[in-house]
């Protein structure tokens, strides 16, 4: 197979380079310093996250990507406060955070809408808890529902919605609290390819129109490159930062950029990091591979598929 002639993923056009310079001048929203998390298991302590440090700036879109078992979900759940950490610091606007709170919105991979509440009541949930009056909460909720384009469904129950619509309500519900940062844990992982592409488009639109910083977990390389300003690449056992990639694909993003040289160069780099060439041999040693014998009758008149 011939390799495409691609530029380096580090080559940035002047506009892109200028944008990153300005981005890094924006205030830091989330700062993670030396975050380490160990689990105690029957086989002894296991390090899930080791010395993770990064910072995200205001209105930045960061994707976290890595091989399975690298602890990307653990990372985002720790940031949300749903799990505690062993050492290190998580700072939001320079202040350490402990436990979950409405200042960090979260969208989960599974559907977590409250099934007994209508779309409107789901979005009102956080506003009610914040002590907003009923009418004020309702008014605000309707605006957020309108933002995600579900005005027709305000009184529908979650079981009447498609997967993509449910996740849009979940996004509206998280945003209604006006969090400083939106954490998303493979939110489109359960959707089919078409819905997922649509949802990626919606998410970029929402992100462009409101003041929100996003940390987005995914295992889909294309999704990461398409959405992110920067991609945090983790490696497994233990989960460590491997590289923080500045995506050289210019903004605003369109689906047609998926075949641009910058996009492909970034993808090649991600492939190298996540599926390093030596890895397959290593998996063979672990016995995690198919054991292939030709299971065709000897006299079958079938040619090799190749």
């Amino acid at each position, binding site marked *: 197979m011939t390799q495409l002639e691609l530029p380096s993923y580090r080559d940035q056009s002047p506009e892109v380079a200028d944008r990153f310079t300005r981005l890094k001048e924006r205030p830091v929203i989330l700062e993670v310093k030396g975050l380490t998390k160990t689990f105690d298991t029957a086989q002894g302590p296991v390090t899930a996250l080791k010395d993770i440090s990064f910072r995200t700036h205001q209105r930045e879109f960061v994707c976290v990507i890595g091989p399975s078992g690298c602890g990307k979900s653990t990372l985002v759940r720790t940031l949300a406060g749903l799990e505690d950490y062993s050492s290190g610091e998580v700072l939001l606007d320079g202040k350490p955070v402990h436990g*979950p709170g409405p200042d960090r919105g*979260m969208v989960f991979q599974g559907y977590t809408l409250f099934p007994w509440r209508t779309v409107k009541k789901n979005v009102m949930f956080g506003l009610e*808890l914040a002590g907003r009056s009923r009418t004020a909460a309702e008014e605000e909720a309707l605006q957020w529902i309108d933002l995600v384009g579900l005005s027709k469904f305000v009184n529908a129950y979650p079981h*009447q919605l498609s997967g993509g619509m449910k996740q849009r309500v979940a996004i509206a*519900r998280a945003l209604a609290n006006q969090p400083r940062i939106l954490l998303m844990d493979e939110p489109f992982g359960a959707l089919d390819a078409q819905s997922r592409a649509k949802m990626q488009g919606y998410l970029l639109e929402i992100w462009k129109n409101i003041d929100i910083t996003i940390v987005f977990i995914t295992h889909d390389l294309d999704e990461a490159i398409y959405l992110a300003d920067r991609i945090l690449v983790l490696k497994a056992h233990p989960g460590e930062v491997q590289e923080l990639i500045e995506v050289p694909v210019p903004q605003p993003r369109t689906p047609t950029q998926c075949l641009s040289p910058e996009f492909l160069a970034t993808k090649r780099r991600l492939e190298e990091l996540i599926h390093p060439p030596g890895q397959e041999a290593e998996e063979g040693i672990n016995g995690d591979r198919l054991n292939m014998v030709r299971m065709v009758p000897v006299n079958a008149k079938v040619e090799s598929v190749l």
Partner: protein
Amino acid sequence: MNKPWFAVRKELSPRRRSFLAVMSFVLPLLVWSLVSYVPFIWHPQVEIIEAGEVDYFRTGMLVDRSVFEQERETLRAEGRELPTGTRTNPVYLPAPHEVATALYTAFSTEPQRRNEKWLHESLADSIQVIFWGFFLSSLIGVPLGILAGTYVAVSRLTEPFVEFFRYLPAPAFGALAVAILGIHDAPKIAIIFIGTFFQQVLVVANTTRKLDPALLEAALTLGARNAGLLFKVVIPGVASDLYRDMRILLGWAWTYLIVAEMIGASSGITWFITQQARYKNFDNVFAAILIIGIIGLTTDLILAWLGRRLFPWQRTARA
């Protein structure tokens, strides 16, 4: 209409569903009618019409067929007057039309003794006992179960004792309940309470534990805290399942009724049944049993209907 009747977990057409629902009642009735009206299926006894010269036979008396045949043989050999009779079922299996008549006459017949109650009064007594027993049990059992299902501390503090107590048979507390609470309705309500409460706490706690933890996590990230989690997520989240549990538990409460009504001053529908059996009015016994069934089924249908109104979000889209 070419679809198969038996396909693993495939829904049937509405017409077939209602047809089968009707048949589920018609078939047992049919079996009962066959056994009652077709002589050669069972009818193990003979009702005497003419006693003949058998000195202990009386008109209307029921004797086993073998005894009847034996007496006939003896008399025929001696050339004396033969007894006559028709084949019939034992007294404890009345025919459907007799029970149907009893369904009416049981209400219109005056009690045999002055201190006994009319059937409708007995029924009212029973329903009251069930209601108060179940209501009081739920009043404490449901909140306790929800707390035990939500907080591990409450669970550890209550459930071991509840587990122990639920193995103690409620009837065993009959004498104790009478000694403490007197002889009227109070000890009966206590028996229903004991029979229901301990199961209820465990069932409610288990249902509460089945709430999807992801919903709790989502609520946490939206700013919910202790009381907010309990009242805005746990309780509404399990309410519809608890409602279904309560329907099942109410059925159990009826099981303890028969014990409850035997202690202290006997009263109620199951006491009525025992009395009527003693008088050998088995048509009344069947009628009373049917009435319990009808009350149970009707309550459940009403509760199911109410449940659909209370929890509209539970209705899944039917294809």
